[in-house]
Each structure stands twice: as structure tokens, then as C-alpha cells.
């Protein structure tokens, strides 16, 4: 193809509206795939980035979602905003403190305290207060004007400097408001549960900063401690924050002296935090474990584009080469490759892909590094799909071979490779380009289908896997609008991307295939 006709082809392409639309969509998704880490700060598999089943943030514009809470940190790092009460034997002084970075990594968000309350307390033993004496409490008022959240987390960062003569000391978190007063942690239950680390006896360390992080969702939670009467309600947020209004959040330090002794404790307490896990989050909401769906969506575009383009490129290369080769070579080799093509065309594509994928997922190599799975998929796809193109190319090349100029070249002593390269290839490039684009959607759809059928093959986020997970949870999702934001957008993305390649292919076809031009 000469320069001028190539130039003409390009300008023609830019006059083809559908082709341009397709190209724009492809560019968009390529951009999201390449820039995934820039477009989202969350890792796609990070749980409880927000509450479970959070709707997309923009959905709160609709009346039925209007007063859903977003992620909110109901606290203040400034001690001046807290009401501090202490027992008579206690000294409390606010101090500026420097925390190690490790103490600041909370539960998917960064809480940056600037101040801590230094509490020095001597508690004499008395039979009356054998279960302990509250020596200091920090309380904070906040207004909650949303529907109740499903989940929340809470905690404090502390530094125990000095301890003597204590049987135990512990921290108690209390939430009170229009829905009632709830001890978020209850000592009676805590002391029975060795995994809890909220009390000195159960493992609060001395001499270093320590992050007490509790929630009603994470595995280290004693759910029994959260319910009003040992109830194991999963969505305890719906009980504790049932009503709108002003709530009071209190954290208390309680000391139990050793029998007959005067206990002494010196501890730094940060303003405690209370984190409502939102029911509206980000661009695409969250899944059943509070993972960010936008992040999964963005990372998912990688696999679709990679598999689609690579498989299509490999198919086109193999198909074109074998098609041309068979046409030029003729004879036994031609017959051989065409019979191979016959056999492959008879094999059922999807069932075979399912079998092979199943085996791949069981193999130790893939289990160690799941991303290899997709490379094997590309190989499988191209091996199974070159015959269609090879046949088309072969018949095209066979008719070109008989043209006068090819015969002339042959008469001048041109070799097979030369003829293939200079005379046949340029004439079938249009067909090749169009096929390159038109075969991508099939691969994208098949890859997504395989992910749908084997959602647990790996944890790499893909659009197919997102829909599979949404489908898995559909039965239990009645209360959550069936998670429409979960299965709708990855599906739309698959459609758009496939469509984009179809449009691009049509546009190329129209440019290179004069018969299709409008007359």
C-alpha cells in the first residue's frame, strides 16, 4: 500500500463516526488499565474499606438512598473537644506526643492523632471496688443524621508507661444516645476470651504504642460483647445507631488493684476513634465484604484488554501465516494444515476451554502464581481460533496467487517468501486488520465467561469474576437491592469494550473492503 492510499485510509477512518466512537472507548479502557493505581488508592481485595453492600456515592442523589451514611470518622484528634473526667486520685495532663508510623495504620484509613492524655493514677484496694475503678473517661458528642450503618469499627491508641500492683486494667468503650446505652466492650466477656487484647492481663504491652482496634466486622471481634444482651446480630450497627440524633462516645480506663495494695498506672491515651463504615462509597460502591468495587473494576479492565488483545494478535499472526503458507506451499503441507484446522473447528470451544482451565487451576504452578493462568488462556484461545482466519486468508491468497502480477513476479524469479511478503501480504492486510479488531470481543467474552464459571480460580479481579461473585450473593442480597451496582457495571463495561472492538473492526472493514462502501 502506498503512502497516499494509507493516508487516505487514515483520513477515511477519522470520518467514520462509529469507528471513532469505538476507538475512544478502547482508549478509555486502556487508560484505566494502565493507570489503575492512579485511579484508585484501594487494593481491590482489601476488605472493609467501607461497609458491606455500600451503594455508589452518587446513588445518594436518589431519594431511597438519600440518607445513607458514607464512611465517617466520628471523633476529634483535638483533646479540647473531649470532655475529660477523672477520679480524685488521678492526674490527667494533655501532652503533645509523637507516634511511630506503625501505630497510625488503622483499618484502611489513617487517623493522625496529635495529642494524648497522660493519666497517672493510684488506686487503693477496696473491697467495694473489687471489679475496678474508673479512673479516667474521655467522652465525645457527635450528631448522627443518617440511616443506621451495618458495621463500624472503634478503638484507641495507647502507651502504657508504668504499671505496679495491678491485678488488671482495661479500657471500656461506651456508646449512648437515642437508641440506648451500649457497652461496646464488656469486661465480663473480655476476660473470658483470651483472644481479646483490650485488657492488661490479656496482652496490652508496656512501654510501646499499642493500637486497640475493635469492630463488629473483623475476625478478632467478640460479637457477643457487642449485642445488647449477648446477641450475635451481624449488623449491630443497626441496633446501636438505630435512631438519628446526638450520641455520646466514651472511652474509660478502669483499674483493678491487687488485693490489699495500691495500684499505680501511668498511661497515654489518644482521643478514641469511632468509625462508621459507610453504606455509600466511592464511584461503584462495595461488595458483601466492603471491598471497593471501583478498584476491582479498574484493575479488572487489565485482564480483559490484555487477554483480548494478546489472544487476537496471536490468532491473527498464526492464522495469517498458516493461511498464506498453505496457499503458497500447496500440496501435502497445505492438506495437513487444513485438516488440522478441520479438527480444531469441530472441537467445542467453550467446553474445551472449561476443561483446560479447570486443569490449569489445579496445577501447582498456577496456584503459586495465578497470573500465569491468563497467559495460558491466551495460548489456548489462539490455538483454538486460528483455523477460521487461516481458511479465509488461504482462499483469499489462492485467488491472489493467480493474478497476473504475481505470475509476472514468479516468472522474474521471485521466491515464495518474497511473493508472500511483497505481493500477497499487502493485499490481505485489510482483512487482517479487520479480523484483529473483530476477534477481540469473542476473546473478551470467553475470558469473562470462564471467570464467571470459575470465580475461585484466582483472586485477580476481573469483570467476569465480579459478576460471578454478585451472582453468588444474589440470593442473600434481597435486602440490598440485589447489589445492582455490583453486577451492572462490570457487565456494561464488557459490553462497551466488546462493542468498541466491533465498531473499530467494521470501520476498518469498510475502509479496506471497497464493496462495503456506501454508493
Amino acid at each position: 500500500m502506498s503512502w497516499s492510499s494509507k493516508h487516505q485510509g487514515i483520513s477515511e477512518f477519522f470520518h467514520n463516526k462509529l469507528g471513532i466512537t469505538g476507538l475512544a472507548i478502547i482508549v478509555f479502557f486502556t487508560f484505566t488499565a494502565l493507570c489503575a493505581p492512579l485511579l484508585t488508592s484501594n487494593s481491590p481485595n482489601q476488605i472493609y474499606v467501607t461497609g458491606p453492600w455500600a451503594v455508589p456515592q452518587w446513588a445518594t442523589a436518589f431519594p431511597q438512598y438519600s440518607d445513607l451514611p458514607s464512611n465517617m470518622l466520628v471523633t476529634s484528634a483535638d483533646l479540647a473537644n473531649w470532655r475529660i473526667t477523672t477520679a480524685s486520685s488521678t492526674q490527667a495532663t494533655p501532652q503533645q506526643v509523637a507516634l511511630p508510623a506503625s501505630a497510625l495504620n488503622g483499618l484502611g484509613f489513617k487517623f493522625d492523632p496529635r495529642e494524648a492524655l497522660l493519666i497517672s493514677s493510684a488506686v487503693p484496694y477496696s473491697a467495694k471496688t473489687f471489679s475496678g475503678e474508673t479512673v479516667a473517661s474521655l467522652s465525645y458528642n457527635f450528631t448522627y443524621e443518617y440511616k443506621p450503618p451495618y458495621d463500624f469499627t472503634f478503638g484507641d491508641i495507647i502507651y502504657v508507661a508504668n504499671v505496679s500492683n495491678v491485678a488488671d486494667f482495661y479500657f471500656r468503650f461506651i456508646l449512648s444516645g437515642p437508641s440506648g446505652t451500649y457497652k461496646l466492650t464488656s469486661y465480663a466477656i473480655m476476660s473470658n476470651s483470651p483472644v481479646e487484647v483490650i485488657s492488661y492481663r490479656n496482652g496490652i504491652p508496656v512501654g510501646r504504642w499499642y493500637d486497640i482496634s475493635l469492630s463488629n466486622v473483623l475476625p478478632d471481634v467478640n460479637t457477643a460483647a457487642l449485642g445488647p444482651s449477648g446477641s450475635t446480630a451481624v449488623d449491630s450497627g443497626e441496633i446501636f445507631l438505630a435512631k438519628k440524633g446526638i450520641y455520646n462516645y466514651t472511652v474509660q480506663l478502669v483499674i483493678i488493684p491487687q488485693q490489699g495494695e495500691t495500684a499505680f498506672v501511668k498511661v497515654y491515651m489518644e482521643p478514641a476513634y469511632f468509625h462508621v463504615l459507610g453504606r455509600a462509597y466511592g464511584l461503584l460502591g462495595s461488595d458483601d465484604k466492603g471491598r471497593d468495587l471501583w478498584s476491582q473494576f479498574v484493575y479488572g479492565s487489565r485482564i480483559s484488554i490484555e487477554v483480548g488483545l494478546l489472544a487476537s494478535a496471536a490468532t491473527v499472526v498464526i492464522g495469517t501465516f498458516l493461511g498464506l503458507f498453505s496457499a503458497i506451499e500447496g500440496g501435502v503441507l497445505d492438506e495437513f494444515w487444513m485438516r488440522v484446522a478441520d479438527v480444531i473447528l469441530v472441537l467445542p470451544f467453550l467446553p474445551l476451554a472449561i476443561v483446560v482451565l479447570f486443569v490449569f487451576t489445579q496445577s501447582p504452578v498456577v496456584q503459586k502464581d495465578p497470573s500465569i493462568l491468563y497467559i495460558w488462556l491466551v495460548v489456548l484461545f489462539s490455538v483454538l481460533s486460528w483455523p477460521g482466519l487461516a481458511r479465509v486468508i488461504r482462499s483469499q491468497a489462492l485467488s491472489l496467487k493467480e493474478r497476473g502480477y504475481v505470475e509476472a513476479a514468479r516468472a522474474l524469479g521471485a521466491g515464495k517468501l518474497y511473493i508472500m511478503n511483497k505481493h500477497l501480504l499487502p493485499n490481505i492486510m485489510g482483512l487482517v486488520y479487520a479480523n484483529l479488531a473483530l476477534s477481540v470481543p469473542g476473546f473478551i467474552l470467553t475470558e469473562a465467561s470462564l471467570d464467571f464459571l470459575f470465580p475461585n480460580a484466582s483472586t485477580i479481579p476481573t469483570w467476569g469474576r465480579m459478576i460471578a461473585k454478585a451472582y453468588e450473593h444474589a440470593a442473600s442480597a434481597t435486602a440490598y437491592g440485589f447489589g445492582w451496582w455490583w453486577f451492572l457495571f462490570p457487565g456494561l463495561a464488557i459490553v462497551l469494550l466488546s462493542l468498541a472492538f466491533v465498531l473499530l473492526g467494521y470501520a476498518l472493514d469498510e475502509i479496506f473492503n471497497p464493496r462495503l462502501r456506501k454508493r
Partner: protein
Amino acid sequence: MSLRGFILRRLGAMIVVLVVVAAINFFLFQILPFYVLHVNPEQWFVPLPSGSVHNVAYIEKIRAQVIAAMGFNLPVYERFFVYLRSMFTFNFGYNVGGALSGPVIVTIERFAPYTILLLGSSTVAAYIVGIYLGVVSAAKRGQVADVASFTTLLFLYAMPSFWIGTLLLIFFAFSMKLFPIDAEAYFSSFHGIAFVGALLKAMVLPFTSLLLVSIGGVYLIMRSTTIDVLSEDYIMMARAKGLSNSAILYKHALRNAILPIITLFAISMGFILSGAVITETIFSWPGLGYWTFVAIETLDFPLEQAIFFVISIMVVAANFIADLLYGFLDPRIRAG
């Protein structure tokens, strides 16, 4: 080449292709399950006839029978010939997955009708609707109706079948509760006439899903071939003669434009048995597609081999019929 020579040559090629496919089938499953499980195939025979749990002698007898019939006591190359014979005599061995028991051929005979019913009806429906819309769309090329249907059907064409299935299931089964969620569990509790009603009711969603998925492809091809044909000289001639638009469209254009579609239809009828793995799995429609998936999950490789082989036969036969049909329908090819 005479028609008879053509047919004979094609038949020969078909048998060669089938033998090769059967061989691939054999070695694929021969290597894979061992690779996966590293166990003795004898351990797979989990299904036991109920009530015979303590009858060790009986179980051993059945087991020995199965092992002998499927050649598990032979070396691989000898087993291959046992296998080949079993494939070409349609005696596919026994289910070993545990989900099903008994001879594979019984399984196939039992579940193939569901697939044929679902896939057959939806394919035929998709072709009828697709052809009609394609012709109308081509005749009104560039008008609002054409643009609207082109856009819609292109969208459908690009939709993944599992997504359509999921959407339909969630909206019409989970949310509106109009149709059953688990098709098989639903209709198998009915008998007699009520069974037919229940079967049809359970079929609505998978049918719609498959119809929507396959209609786009038919429409797009039909539209483009019709557009091609409408630009031919003889259509211009017909117009010049003053024929009505509908006469041109249906008598002159459609007859020529429909040829590739008929071939395509014959080929897609060949893939009818491969079922719609995804759609059948989503709606729990107990066809061969559904069992293809279950067979893989339960490592029931005799069933998988049998399904693959039956599909291959159907596809090879359908391709052959398509070729014959094309020659029969297109006088240009018959003459040449």
C-alpha cells in the same frame, strides 16, 4: 466432481476428523485427571446402589465389571483401542463422578432432550426474528428504524450470555419471583400435564436469555448480506421494471441474501448438543451443557468424553449437511 464422489470423499474426511477428535479426547482426559488427582481410577467409583452398602461382594462385582468394560486394567495404548471401540459403538462406559451413576449413554439419552428442546427452540426463534429484522433493517437502511434496531442488536451481540442470564435471573426470579430460580428442582416436582406446564415455565428465562444472546449475530449477517444484495444490478433492474418494494425485497433480495444464513443455521444446529454451558448452569437447566460443567467439576471424564464426541459428530454432520444444502439451494454452485 460428481455428487457421489463429493459425498464419498467428504464422508471419508469426516471419519478421519472424528477419529482424530476422539484421540485428542482420549489423551486429554487420560493425562488430565491423573495429573489433577494422582489417584488410582478405581477410587473414583463412588456411586453405589442404595441398600447395597454392606454387600461387598456385589460392589466388587460391579467395580470389576466397570473396570473391565472401560479397560482400566489395561495399559494406556490398549485402553485407547477399547476406548475407540466404545466411542464408535456409542457405548461410552460408566459415570465415575459421583453426581450420576450408571452407563454414560443413559445419562446422555436422559439429558439430551432438555438441551435439544431449549437450544433448538431458541435457535430457531433467534433465526426467524433475526432474519426478519435484518431484512427490514437493510431495506430501511439509514432510517430511524434501522439505526435503532442496529444499535440495540449490536448491543445484544456484545452482551456476555452470563450477564444476560444473571440479569434475567435476578430481576424475574429473585426479585419479582415470576419464574423459578432452580429450573430442574422446580419442574421435577410435577408430573403428567402439569409437568409440561412447569417445564415450559422454567424454560422461559433460559429461552429468553439464549434468544437475546444469539439474535444479534444472525441479524448483523442478514442485514449486511441483504445490503450487499440490494446493491446488485438485478435489483436495480427489478426496480426499473417497476416492481413493488416488497416484491423486490422478498422475491429477489431475500432469496439470495438468505443463503449464507442457511449454512450458518445448519452449522449452529450442529452445536446444539454442546448446549449453552453458561445459560444452562445459571438457570440449572439439566441439559448437556449443564452436565458438561458438572462433569468437569466432579472429574466424570467418561461423561465428558462422550459429550465431546457426540458434539463432534453433530458438528461434522451439520457441516456436511450445510455444504450439501448450499449446493442444493444455490443453482450457481450446482451448475459449477
